[in-house]
């Protein structure tokens, strides 16, 4: 690891101001992505701004039809939140299958969304429900937020403060784990709302998380696994790597979507 200056911020505003005065600063949330990257000497921020003690960025609140989760909330807190589990179990299940217990007790929803790893799980839930990402300066709709591999609508120095999920009638996340990293080789989040169904796919596309709109249309009129039986997923543009080629990933998109619909509750 290269040497770096450490700062702790206890509010989002303080974090933003520390970042703006740093030469090449980075927020440190759970550190589950950033610290391994720094240890491998692939990232060398001049300053780290630790937001892990910023209480205003933590916690889960559930109001009529929506769940708001603070950016600094860990995966374990999401997975184990009783009220959230009864309102929106699919999100708790997703969080409960990220990484291992150590990762889940450090890693955060804000860090995951800021990083936008193409194989990460939360992006599927956020895009699959049309959630809102709130930052210290604005609210960003999920459809505008994800902009490709590791790319988001966040400006330099912008701090995610919370994420607000509309609570679906029924939802499910199916994750097929990459054998080595156990990130999603493909993950599919299906959510049914009164207005229709959303289907978001992570892990599969060279352009990052995406909505499978053909499936959304079919499922909006008939929310059964059979409804997507006639659809096909194109393998073009799908990631090909050591763990599976594009046609395999395209197959998984189809299989996992059908399973998510069948399992949605």
């Amino acid at each position, binding site marked *: 690891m290269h040497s770096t200056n450490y700062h702790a911020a206890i509010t989002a505003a303080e974090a933003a101001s520390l970042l703006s005065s740093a030469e090449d600063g980075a927020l440190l949330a759970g550190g589950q992505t950033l610290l391994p990257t720094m240890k*491998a*000497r692939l990232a060398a921020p001049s300053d780290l701004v630790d937001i892990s003690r910023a209480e205003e960025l933590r916690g889960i609140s559930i109001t009529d039809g929506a769940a708001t989760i603070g950016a600094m909330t860990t995966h374990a807190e999401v997975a184990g939140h009783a009220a959230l589990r009864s309102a929106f179990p699919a999100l708790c299940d997703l969080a409960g299958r990220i990484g291992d217990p150590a990762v889940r007790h450090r890693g955060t929803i804000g860090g995951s969304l800021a990083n936008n790893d193409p194989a990460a799980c939360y992006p599927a839930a956020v895009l699959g429900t049309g959630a809102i990402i709130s930052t210290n300066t604005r609210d960003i709709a999920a459809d505008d937020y994800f902009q490709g591999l590791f790319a988001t609508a966040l400006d330099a120095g912008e701090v995610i403060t919370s994420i607000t999920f509309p609570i679906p009638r029924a939802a499910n996340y199916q994750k097929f784990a990459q054998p080595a*990293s156990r990130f999603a080789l493909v993950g599919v989040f299906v959510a049914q709302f009164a207005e229709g169904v959303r289907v978001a796919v992570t892990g599969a596309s060279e352009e990052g998380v995406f909505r499978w709109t053909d499936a959304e249309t079919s499922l909006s009129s008939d929310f059964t696994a059979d409804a997507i039986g006639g659809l096909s997923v194109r393998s073009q543009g799908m990631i090909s790597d050591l763990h*599976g080629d594009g046609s395999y990933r395209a197959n998984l998109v189809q299989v996992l979507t059908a399973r998510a619909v069948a399992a949605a509750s």
Partner: protein
Amino acid sequence: MSQGIGAAVKRKEDKRFTTGKGKYTDDIRMENQAYAAFVRSPHAHARVNNMDTSAAEAMDGVIAILNGAELTGDGIGNIICGWAITSKDGSPMNMGAWSALATEKTRYVGDAVAIVIAETNAQARAAAEAVEIDYEELPVAASLAAALADGAPQIHENAPGNIVYDWEIGENDATEAALADAAHITEMDITNNRLSPNPMEPRSAVAIYDDAEDHYTLYTTSQNPHVARLVLSAFYNVAPEHKLRVIAPDVGGGFGSKIYIYPEEIACLWASMKTNRSVKWTSDRTEAFLTDAHGRDHVTKARMGFDQDGRIVGFKVSTKANFGAYMSLFSSAVPTYLYATLLSGTYNIPNIYCEVLGVYTNTVPVDAYRGAGRPEASYLVERMIETAARELGKDPADLRNINFIREFPHQTPVIMNYDSGDFEGNMRQAMVAADWAGFGARKAESAMRGKLRGIGMSCYIEACGIAPSAAVGSLGAGVGLWESAEVRMNPVGTIEVLTGSHSHGQGHETTFAQVVADRFGVPIDTVQIVHGDTDKVQFGMGTYGSRSGPVGMSAIVKALDKLEVKIRKLAAHLLEASEADIVIEDGQVKVDGTNKVLAWHEVGLAAYTGHNLPEGMEPGLKEGAFYDPLNFTFPMGCFICEVEVDPQTGKTEILKFVASDDFGTIINPMIVEGQVHGGIAQGVGQAMLEEVRYSEDGQQLSASYMDYAMPRADDLPDFDVLHHSTPCTTNPLGMKGCGEAGAIGTPPAVINAITDAIGNNDLSMPATPAKVWAALNSAKVAAE
């Protein structure tokens, strides 16, 4: 409860390991300690035109930056390969030079070109990054195919066509003739995937130069510290043996990868002298992927012929073995004498011929890794016979059974002479435990759930305790493969055993003490096992090839024999009895049929006071032995694996895994079971998860745990571990060895099961979900 042979006593060493009190090389801290970092080639094949260290040298904390020219200038020798293999045409193998720090050319990504010594680890690494090197990139051959292609880049000048050797064993004409008359021939192309060993503790070295004594000490992660001292001294010219102490303290796993003396240890020792500082280097996980010797990497074509009754008449094998960029210490022996000599498997095969082409590529050196040659052989033989059974429409157990060797000793056509075994008995026991007969019903039940169930077996045999020294010497080995032991009984009756074996997870502190407890009836807590330090222990050969049981413990037995003779003589004198009437049991020395008895410490005291010794007896109680094995030992067994495949995703779940092994005598069943568990886990890793992959330009694509899939607990079922032992007839305890069997026997059982489930035999390791799904689809397309 007995603590002797056969007792499942808990491991003495685990208190320190499980409480974080183990002392590993990286835990060693010297007062004048500096840190080393290596400047490594980012290119798989490049000429080093110029190295500019000026900016790096000016950085904070930098003590020295040393390169290959200075190293060779100081007379440090090239890295050797310790087993000379002779090609078919009688020519010696074509070995390219391997300098600890590359001078003109780098030949794999990670090849070290300079060593940076600095006050802190961070400073050393930062300076290593700041060294500017003008590389001229050369064309790369990162695979067997690329290295053997027409016009392939020449990796070493003295290995034309990148061929190290073209070796053979067995009778080609007789084998071809037998195949020509065969009623059926099974033909297969088989790849044995390349693996990275991944011990939990990465490699590490602390080199300490004492200028007043002109003496060196090296703490290092070694499976064989004496062998390390020997080659560092005799070949690398670091220091004469009496001026070099090598200590391998607690070592966290090796699997073969810590047998070898790597460039880093050599460079640290030399740099310690150059800078007059103690120099520490500890590999990080990336460096481990980039520099620890890999394993396997064979491509084979094979034909096995059968007569009308299904008896094997001939087996012809042609293998290409990837050695990577340099010939590592034991590399040459792995695809020859540790592989082709096991091609008879557990079967009576009258004619065998095997040829092996050893090939240089621009990849990490490849050497012995848990099993070393025998996993490649058993995978080949057991995939062939299973495939033949399918082709012949026979039950795979029946086909094996009619071919099993039943009489011992059995001389195979490929050197090995099997001493003992009950191959059918083992298979039957495994089949009962696996409910082989009930498989059809289980398959039907899976089918109702839309799943594909398959079952596969493997009746492996392997060879441990490589031996005897004269025989391996005649085959080209540069060392003898005996083992040493010294047993010291102290004046108070406690016992120290100094062994040339080295424990890096195997539990020797417990099992070796059990052998002593068994002999004298003393508690294991009064027995201390001393190993891993060339200043304490007489020369020894170390631990690999499951040799510490059959060879290392045999040496202890020989030393105990001598000690017992002296104790009896002394006790007979003291108790005024005849030696024949002396009985040693429960830590006491008695005269049979009387109440005359000496407590254990009384024997020790008598020997060391020397006040009343028999005529001519020297004081003290200390005996040593060097044991040279008479033959290899041959552990064997039958593994049965049952899997269920999800046809929609290709994901395979192992539902049941039965291992029935013949390890001969078992000292500690709990430790043996642990060895089998670990071996099976690594075997499942090879079969389903692990593979080192390179890009065409020689970059390792799988050099982190994000892409290299290690087996985890939830990838594995509960194992049924059974034994069906026949004692080895060629060593005193009847032991065969158990350290590698799991890794050797597992891959074919798993792949036989998966291919059975999916109905397509064309499946290579690792059988990842994507590959299984593709194989299912191509089977479907073929059927349409």
